[in-house]
């Protein structure tokens, strides 16, 4: 059985989207939800079938001489720019795309399911148009799937944009809330700005290599790099520029510093959306992009350094901010940023020659596990918010009694992200640390530190929600979510526990040969130690309500405030966009347009008018003055000719 049926993976969500979108409110809320969810379920089944057939089958030449092959299941010409540059819409199957198919469809299906409960009666004033919600979810699934299976960079760009817009639509789902509207706008514009880099990168790359095709590009990276003929721009090779710019696109989607600012705001969207888009799938698109073009990136040392530095810094920065946030979704958002930065760093430090390119594998592994446990955490957060109707930690506390399932699921998620064995996060994070140590000890220690911070802020979050104090919830006692919501939590908890045990390296590695994971015990033990210390610290500080955290905040007031305000990055952006772009560029330009450009044309008209006024005296009405003018005219004629003849 060949993979041609794989088109269903794209077509089903598309059909769902069109159906739900066009039917709109003619469908009942329930029907729309059920249709969306079941279609997603079918899609998930097909995606699983494809992935399993790819990983475990051999009949289609999936694996030749121990190397998993890249299979283009189908390919349609969509647009021909020129003879060579052709955009095709196709379906590329290789280890990472197969792995992503699983991740996306799993999380997406679970989120669909979860939303059936979550979106039903919660906040219903704003939730008019659940039909729309499911349509958008389908659109998102379509775009994300299209993105990961793209066999060429332009298809990826196309779906990249679509992912952006579905994210925009979903963040702004509560479109009557100004905060949601501005958050969606911000998300779209920031990522759009990053995409500009992506686009320019594509342009440069395709100009030299004359292809968009990933297989052509990555199968012989040296040749691809050499097409530039060593051309440089501002001292760096153009290919480095191209790849860095493409990374900029990835950094935008994956919320790397300094393009991360949209992600925390994006939490204004419905929580299941945050789980799907802003934790599990879309935000890892940047990581996926680098992984997809990894052989090319390896050729440019400078770009890799940029990636490493940005990744490592972001990891630290986001962790630092996460330590002091009070909105639970924001903490999770910053934690997401930090974790994605782990993956990016891991790719940045990965080299084929270093430990068989463990960084690549580790990054993908972490992507996989993170998708699961972060989705779990977000869905738990959703359940909590659903229960207490607030995002703020101050409104929570002691919830373990009211929401046992949620409590356990959240704890599992926290343990996973903190890297405690045998939870999923431990294995993948451990590989990342190994890779970092392989590159340089500095990066290793740095990342380990950040891992410790991760454990700290996650448990701070956990304790603040489930322990800390016992506020009076009044008549509105929180309780565990309905089954549609709890079921995904349970499934994801299980996955988060066991996912780490998957021999991931057997399936995914940079050269698509099987890679056998060995635990590096030095790294593993020390990292677990750091995590445990951090957890203990968090336990000490946050298990019971006490004054210590406040005191600490007071003693590091400057640092604390800065971190709480996310080191003023938003203000900086605000300043640049409003004060500089709007006030210093757009407004003067608009003024210039009205006053100078248009004004000069108007003044031409005025000139004609005033000239007309000025010469009216010539027409004085007196015959004698007419004759004067007549005579002057005669003389003038003669004079002109005489002058011209001389």
């Amino acid at each position, binding site marked *: 059985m060949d993979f041609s049926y794989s088109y269903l993976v794209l077509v089903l969500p598309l059909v769902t989207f069109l159906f739900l979108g066009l039917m709109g409110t003619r469908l009942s809320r329930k029907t729309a939800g059920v249709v969306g969810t079941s279609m997603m379920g079918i899609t998930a089944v097909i995606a699983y079938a494809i992935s399993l057939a790819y990983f475990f089958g051999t009949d289609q030449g999936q694996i030749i001489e121990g190397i998993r092959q890249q299979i283009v299941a189908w390919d349609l010409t969509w*647009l021909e*720019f020129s003879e060579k540059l052709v955009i095709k819409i196709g379906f590329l199957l290789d280890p990472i795309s197969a792995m992503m198919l699983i991740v996306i469809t799993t999380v997406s299906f679970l989120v669909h399911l979860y939303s059936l409960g979550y979106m039903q009666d919660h906040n219903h004033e704003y939730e008019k148009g659940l039909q729309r919600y499911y349509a958008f979810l389908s659109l998102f699934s379509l775009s994300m799937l299209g993105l990961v299976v793209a066999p060429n960079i332009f298809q990826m*760009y196309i779906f990249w944009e679509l992912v952006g817009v579905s994210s925009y639509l979903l963040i702004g789902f509560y*479109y*009557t809330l100004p905060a949601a509207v501005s958050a*969606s706008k911000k998300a779209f*514009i920031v990522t759009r700005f990053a995409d*500009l880099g992506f*686009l320019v990168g594509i342009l440069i790359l395709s100009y030299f290599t004359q292809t968009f095709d990933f297989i052509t590009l990555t199968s012989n990276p040296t040749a691809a790099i050499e097409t530039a003929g060593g051309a440089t721009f501002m001292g760096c090779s153009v290919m480095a520029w191209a790849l860095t710019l493409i990374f900029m696109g990835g950094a935008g989607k994956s919320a790397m510093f300094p393009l991360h600012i949209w992600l925390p705001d994006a939490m204004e969207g419905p929580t299941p959306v945050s789980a799907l888009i802003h934790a599990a799938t879309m935000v890892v698109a940047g990581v996926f992009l680098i992984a997809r073009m990894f052989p090319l990136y390896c050729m440019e040392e400078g770009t890799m350094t940029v990636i490493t530095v940005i990744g490592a810094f972001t990891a630290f920065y986001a962790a630092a901010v996460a330590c002091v946030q009070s909105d639970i979704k924001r903490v999770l958002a910053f934690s997401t940023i930090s974790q994605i930065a782990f993956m990016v760093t891991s790719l940045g430090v990965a080299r084929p020659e270093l430990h068989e390119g463990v960084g690549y594998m580790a990054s993908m592994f972490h992507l996989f596990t993170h998708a699961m446990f972060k989705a779990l955490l977000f869905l738990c957060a959703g359940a909590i918010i659903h229960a207490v109707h607030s995002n703020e930690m101050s409104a929570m506390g002691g919830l373990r009694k009211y929401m046992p399932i949620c409590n356990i699921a959240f704890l599992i998620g926290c343990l996973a992200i903190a890297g405690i064995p045998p939870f999923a996060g431990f294995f993948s994070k451990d590989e990342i640390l190994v890779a970092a140590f392989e590159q340089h000890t500095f990066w290793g220690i740095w990342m380990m530190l950040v891992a410790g911070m991760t454990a700290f802020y996650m448990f701070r979050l956990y304790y603040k929600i489930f322990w800390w104090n016992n506020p009076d919830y009044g008549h509105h006692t929180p309780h565990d979510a309905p089954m549609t919501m709890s079921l995904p939590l349970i499934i994801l908890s299980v996955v988060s526990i066991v996912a780490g045990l998957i021999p991931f390296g057997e399936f995914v590695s940079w050269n698509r040969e099987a890679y056998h994971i060995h635990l590096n015990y030095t790294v593993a033990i020390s990292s677990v130690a750091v995590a445990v210390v951090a957890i203990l610290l968090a336990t000490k500080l946050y298990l019971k309500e006490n004054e210590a955290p406040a005191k600490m905040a007071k003693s590091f007031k400057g640092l604390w405030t800065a971190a709480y305000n996310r080191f003023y990055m938003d203000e900086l952006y605000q300043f640049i966009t409003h004060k500089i772009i709007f006030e210093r560029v757009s407004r003067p330009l608009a003024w210039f*347009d009205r006053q100078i450009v248009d004004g000069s044309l108007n003044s031409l008209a005025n000139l004609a008018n005033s000239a007309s006024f000025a010469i009216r005296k010539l027409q004085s009405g007196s015959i004698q003055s007419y004759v004067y003018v007549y005579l002057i005219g005669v003389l003038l004629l003669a004079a002109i000719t005489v002058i011209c003849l001389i």
Partner: protein
Amino acid sequence: MIWENILIYFVVIPVLTLAGLAICKNIKQVRAVSIVGASALMVLGVYVLIEFLQLRAAGNVEEMLFRGDWSWFEPLNIKLSLGVDGISVAMLLLSCVIVFAGVFASWNMDPLPREYFMWFWLLSTGVFGFFIAIDLFAMFMFYEVALIPMYLLIGVWGSGNKNYSAMKLTLMLMGASALLMLGIIGIYFHSAADGNLTMNILEIAKNNAIPNNWQYFLFPMTFVGFGVLGAMFPFHTWSPDGHASAPTAVSMLHAGVLMKLGGYGCFRIAIYLMPHAANELAWIFLILTGISVVYGAFSACVQTDLKYINAYSSVSHCGMVLFAILMLNTTAMTGAIMQMLSHGLMTALFFALIGMIYGRTHTRDIRKMGGLMQIMPFLGVGYVIAGLANLGLPGFSGFVAEMTIFVGSFAHADMFHRVLTIMACSAIVITAVYILRVVGKMLYGPVYDDHHRTLTDAVWHEKFAVITLIVCVAGLGCFPNFFNEIIYDSFAPIIKALGAF
């Protein structure tokens, strides 16, 4: 006989419609006649497209199909020459769609519907004539026929500062056509080395006899002449005022089709006939159009009037058309045509929606609106779709056009073109800024004005116009290769002419 040529019916139908309108008695008849005319045009457009494709498939590789020449002003060897290539066919189809949608968008035109539609159809006559003609004189004549109705359409049926806007628009465009006339006559007098002067574009291109020094003079004349209509900086200022004052369907037609005349003329006349000057002088106009692209986008960011925003956006997008044309390679120029189609449809859609919203709220100030999505979901969704198409979302025509342009533009190896291309690319970010700003302020958020709560959503003819346009925008965006191939091949003669230098 001239009647045997199918193309002439693109002019005959509007003229007949015009005549039919002249004897109409009431608004029902006016609408009926207009719809019949528009539908006939639509059918004709599709028929010509099919016929064209069949001829091409049958291996007819002539530059222009459906050729026909009829002597007109013999002393000057002026003929009425008709003919279309893929580009003209695409533009004709675009015009058909916009006219069709325009009729529905001006359903409730008041006052004087009959007079309104008569001007509307006169304008259409000019537009169609321009696209089917390949004789400089006929093209120029139709071009001006298309321009002048704008004055009355804006002046009588417009709103706001309409007298000023109408006058400014007319004078600026006519000023441009003054330059154009000089350019055309100049081309005519250098059209043949052997004295057989001609106005036929194909023959002029074949003769290739315009001396270089004359090209340096005539190229700017024609390019600026058409460029003004294409809203080239710094001659774009008619556009914001004109669009702001014009009634809905007029804005649609103007931005949707009329501005395309500019871009079309630029390459069909300026570049095709004077390739040497085009190669040498392109950089000047590249800078100007590059400025247009970015400048229009930035200016749109701070406008508060919906129509101004879209007018500046048009400046930016039309700047992109000219920008791409000046890149002088097939890919970029194909992109330019795609952009024309795309911008024509999108802007028409935009203006149609703005007109409908304005017709309900009686304000176009985005600060005085909010939350309209709850009140008029159909129009809101339409506006969001138009906005997303405008900012270049894949699946809509804008994306295809812009990408083709960028890829084509980037095919130049030198720094100058590269920098300009990247500059132009940056406009897509700014476009997102102003589009989302409007969408956010006007459609989302809480309802600003409680009086708006009583407003109603679109009625059937409005929906019909909007859906027609959306389908076209999406169709072009989803299956771009269909048009791309038609257009791409048509550039071969132009590129050959350019390459000859």
